[in-house]
């Protein structure tokens, strides 16, 4: 069965967000302070430009390089998600007990093919919109206008530009994994996804303020601790935060699907074992810290590899 336009858009909306989890939000808030909003606006503009340029690139991929890109993003995403689940949900559970089932589900969904991933994305978007609406309505009364002042901080222009580049890369890099990028190009969906991220930034700063938001690893989770539903249900942060886990899982599923498509299931299994080994040898915490500190360079390398992949792909096609 052919996937519908709505399913493509759903997946596109979901996969541009997960890299903000534990990395994007806190990095931009810590780096820019009160100037975060300038970084976001510039980031969206740069992101739109990157996305536009990406869709102009030829369709053909180089098998090895594109697989490598997927492996990189799969490693980054599993590290981020495992760290997040371990810290916020299952702090007494060994990392492997979190990581192995996660990869098994990704392996299973990749086996089911495109259709499963897209159909799941379609459902996840609805769940995410519902959860986001609850969080948004509950948090609006807790916002203090004072937290947004001073409107302009003391960040240097270089810092603002680098952070806007971070925003653009974090929000667009996962789009390179999208199947038929050229055909399914939709800048409106990217804009809506970026707007959702912007609203999250405003909720974080508005409810916590820059100083408090900066001390937490996951301010996007901390704000949910203050959410109450109908003044009756307290402590629903773990349920609402599931939206981030769902969208992260969509990206992990897409990476696994691409690896399987461009290689085979045995190689995907070997890669997954390799990821488990790495996170055991280096430790998930160290790996997460490395990703957090070097996210800009890692994403630039991935972007460079993607362009190289397209150039080689086109060259081979001409030959």
């Amino acid at each position: 069965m052919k996937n519908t336009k709505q399913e493509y858009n759903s997946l596109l909306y979901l996969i541009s967000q997960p890299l903000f989890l534990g990395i994007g939000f806190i990095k931009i808030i810590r780096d820019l302070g009160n100037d975060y909003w300038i970084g976001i606006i510039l980031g969206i503009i740069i992101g739109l430009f990157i996305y536009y340029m990406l869709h102009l690139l030829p369709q053909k991929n180089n098998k090895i390089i594109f697989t490598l890109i997927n492996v990189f993003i799969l490693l980054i995403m599993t590290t981020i998600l495992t760290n997040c689940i371990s810290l916020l949900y299952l702090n007494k559970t060994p990392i492997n007990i979190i990581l192995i089932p996660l990869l098994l589900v990704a392996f299973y969904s990749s086996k089911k093919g495109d259709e499963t991933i897209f159909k799941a994305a379609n459902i996840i978007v609805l769940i995410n919109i519902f959860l986001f609406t609850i969080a948004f309505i509950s948090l609006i009364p807790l916002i203090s206008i004072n937290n947004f002042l001073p409107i302009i901080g003391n960040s240097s222009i270089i810092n603002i530009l680098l952070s806007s580049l971070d925003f653009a890369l974090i929000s667009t890099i996962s789009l390179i994994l999208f199947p038929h990028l050229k055909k399914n190009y939709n800048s409106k969906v990217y804009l809506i996804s970026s707007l959702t991220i912007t609203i999250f930034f405003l909720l974080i700063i508005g409810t916590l303020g820059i100083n408090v938001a900066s001390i937490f690893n996951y301010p996007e989770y901390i704000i949910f601790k203050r959410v109450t539903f109908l003044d009756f249900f307290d402590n629903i942060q773990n349920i609402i935060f599931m939206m981030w886990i769902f969208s992260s899982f969509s990206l992990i599923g897409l990476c696994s699907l691409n690896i399987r498509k461009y290689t085979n299931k045995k190689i995907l299994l070997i890669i997954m074992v390799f990821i488990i080994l790495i996170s055991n040898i280096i430790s998930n915490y160290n790996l997460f810290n490395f990703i957090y500190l070097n996210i800009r360079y890692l994403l630039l390398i991935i972007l460079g590899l993607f362009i190289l992949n397209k150039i080689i792909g086109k060259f081979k096609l001409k030959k």
Partner: protein
Amino acid sequence: MKKIILIIMCLLLTGCYNYKEINNLAIVSSLAINFKDDNFEVIIEIGENNKDGKYSSYILKGIGASIESAIKNASTSLNKDLHFINLDILLISSDAANLKLNKILDFIARDNNFSFDYNIAICDKSEEVIQTIINQEKIFGNYIKNVYDNTNNNLINIKISDLLDLYLSNYQDIILPIFDLQNEAIIMNKAAIFNKSDIVNYIDDEEIAIYNILNNNFMNYYLNFDFDDRKAVLKGNNYFSNIIYQNNIMKIFTRLEGDLIETENFDINNKEHLKIINKEFKKRIDNLIIKLYSNNSDILGFRNIIYKQKKHLDSSLNKINYQINTKIIINDYSLIIDNIGD
């Protein structure tokens, strides 16, 4: 292969690894942290739901070189895991607030087992205060939560997120309510004001009312005015305060509407009498600010207002000039026209 994967997933994905039965969790309703002789002392109140449907709680006490070890020592005899996610109130002793506030905040902000929506107060008799409420067959944490949520009493309402914000700010000082015990009743009519992380002075009930009015915290205010032989009690029921920094002056504007609920030799219709009340109200705001200036305690956030406007701060608190404008509007909703007996 499919079946093997399914079996593994069923075993691993059911989320049983970290699973805890609710009966095995000790739900902490209030926590008190004291600092004595270089050691932390914690008092933990654990809420329970009895079989007959009544709520009850009990206290655990522990001492240790760190907060964590004190909590561990307190819960050694308990065969349950402590669960702080429903914490309603954190009490800190004056010594702990003066000497170890940074460590306490670091501990509670770091741990995901804590909620992020509980009140904080200073209390030097925490065990007695908690026990007083427990003796009334109530849970202390719930009791305090109800006092804050369901009444409009004139209190200082500081939650953990507010305290963190104030503590991390370089331009505003902390204010915390004080819980005390008098004749087996809890009183909350005082608050401690800080300079950075040290308690420098205390403010009383009427000063708390002025503080709340200036911060637009909606509560019930009873302001007693006593001049010459005239007396009046004003119950504030509507107000608006605005503090702005303009032409190097901190301009404070407060409009307070209220009822005169008790009067003695006082004519509500006499404009001169109302002017005297307005003047007295202005004087009280001035007195509070003078007190804050003399203690170098910026709980009203004057320096923060300047910083947010100018992005830098070049003067200390007591060099900031201020100007107070007040307006009191009396709404007479009483059943009688004139004062009885005048």
